[in-house]
């Protein structure tokens, strides 16, 4: 029974990772950029919600609605100042620039908020505390269900956006061939900015969930980034539903590891990630994987 419970809890955990990973996947899919500051942006989102909750006392979920426009604007600013420039230079530039940005965000948060660990779990109300006991060995938390449902909705909405709306086609077109997209009248700069804003907004949602289900501090970013990246890789880079599945797989791997020994949880996730990397990229000779 405990295995079943572990898997179920793993799915809930994985849904959280999927939300974290979603934004990373969007940015990679559209711009081929891996934003090393992605985790820190999620944490920043958590702090924005935190500030709103502290000063107004409203529920974190409502506070998120208020925080969302702030994060979206931040996304546009990020794209237009840092990311756009880094796209024009080499492959390494976006990685280096976003790494620097990551350090900046972490330490600015540290200065403003101190290293204290915080949580919004207490402010979220009944959602965090209620659960259903299915059997003696299996309990399902309301929060877990909420995050899972939201994750599926977010991915579903994104998929719908990309497949059925003109703006979505434009984003796909720009992702496939930005130069040709420009030639048919698509403003690629605008598409990139929208993609980043979308990624940042969903990252902030991830931050909200982090704050509610667990604790966070200014230096939590890199951990979230690693899990998000692992989810994207496990599910297959460039595939949106893959990222959801990858997140779930990562969550289950971690909880199964924790089942063996609580200290193993992150480790089993890392091992799954490394195995997937080897299998996917290590099969043939180096020359077979030249295309990026």
């Amino acid at each position, binding site marked *: 029974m405990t295995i079943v419970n572990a898997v179920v809890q793993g799915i809930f955990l994985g849904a959280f990772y999927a939300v974290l990973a979603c934004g990373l996947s969007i940015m990679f899919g559209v711009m081929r950029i891996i934003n090393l500051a992605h985790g820190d942006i999620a944490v920043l989102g958590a702090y924005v919600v935190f500030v709103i909750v502290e000063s107004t006392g409203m529920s974190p979920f409502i506070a998120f609605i208020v925080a969302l426009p702030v994060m979206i604007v931040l996304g546009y600013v990020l794209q237009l100042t840092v990311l756009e420039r880094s796209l024009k230079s080499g492959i390494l530039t976006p990685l280096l620039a976003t790494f620097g940005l990551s350090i900046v965000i972490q330490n600015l948060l540290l200065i403003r908020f101190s290293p204290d660990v915080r949580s919004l779990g207490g402010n979220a109300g009944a959602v965090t505390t209620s659960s259903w006991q299915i059997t003696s060995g299996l309990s399902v938390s309301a929060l877990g269900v909420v995050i899972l449902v939201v994750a599926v909705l977010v991915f579903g909405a994104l998929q719908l956006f990309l497949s059925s709306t003109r703006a979505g086609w434009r984003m796909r077109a720009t992702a496939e061939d930005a*130069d*040709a997209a420009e030639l*048919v*009248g698509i403003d690629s700069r605008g598409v990139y900015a929208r993609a980043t804003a979308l990624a940042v907004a969903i990252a902030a949602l991830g931050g909200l969930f982090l704050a509610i289900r667990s604790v966070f501090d200014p230096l939590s970013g890199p951990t979230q980034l690693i899990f998000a990246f692992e989810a994207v890789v496990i599910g297959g880079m460039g595939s949106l539903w893959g990222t959801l599945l990858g997140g779930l797989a990562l969550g289950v791997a971690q909880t199964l590891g924790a089942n063996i020994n609580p200290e193993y949880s992150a480790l089993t996730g890392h091992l799954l990630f490394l195995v997937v990397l080897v299998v996917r990229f290590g099969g043939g000779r180096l020359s077979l994987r030249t295309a990026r």
Partner: protein
Amino acid sequence: MTLLRVEDLDCRYGLLQAVRGLSFEVAQGETVALIGANGAGKSTLLRAIAGAHKPHGGRVVFDEADVTSRAAHSRVALGIALVPEGRRLFPGLTVEENLRVAAARRGRWNVQSVLEVFPLLQPRRHTAAANLSGGEQQAVAIGRALMSNPRLLLLDEVSLGLAPIVVDAVYRSLAGIINEGTTVLLVEQDLTRALKVAGRVVCMLEGRIVLEGEAASLDRDSVVSAYFGLKRPA
């Protein structure tokens, strides 16, 4: 009236000069063929006119407005559309999505009318572009450019990589478009076709214009010598 005027255009790739101080004009309603050997700078010139290549110097003037510093996508809004070399369709999008993703301007061209001109696409409407044949892809590429109801249609090597019979079909459709009064500037490797479809011919060599004239009045020999640079201008 002059629809397009290129003044003293200088286009480079790093240190390589692809277009050297080139000037020429296209009048409204004209069909001009750009010919020349590989590397003459024809594609670069088209791309510079469309806004995909930033010139090192010179101006591109469209309908008396200087568009040199305008991004490509905003030129489409003004009425310039390029069918790029190699088609460059969006492989993951279907035929219909490829057409509808293009910026639309008011005019007689829409998905329906494009499919009427290229009836071979009708049954392939929801097929991903990556799964189309060469001829079908070329049709979609031209159709995609038409969706913006361009005043100036730029075509880069539409016959490249296609079987002659397919090229015939493409040019038949083009003839219809030309007859409707769209100004067309096309790059074409096949001299015979170029001379047949165009009213005026411009021959380029190493980034410069070496011969220019009415298609009907030019004799093949002088065109061929200019093409290969056999008689270099002083």
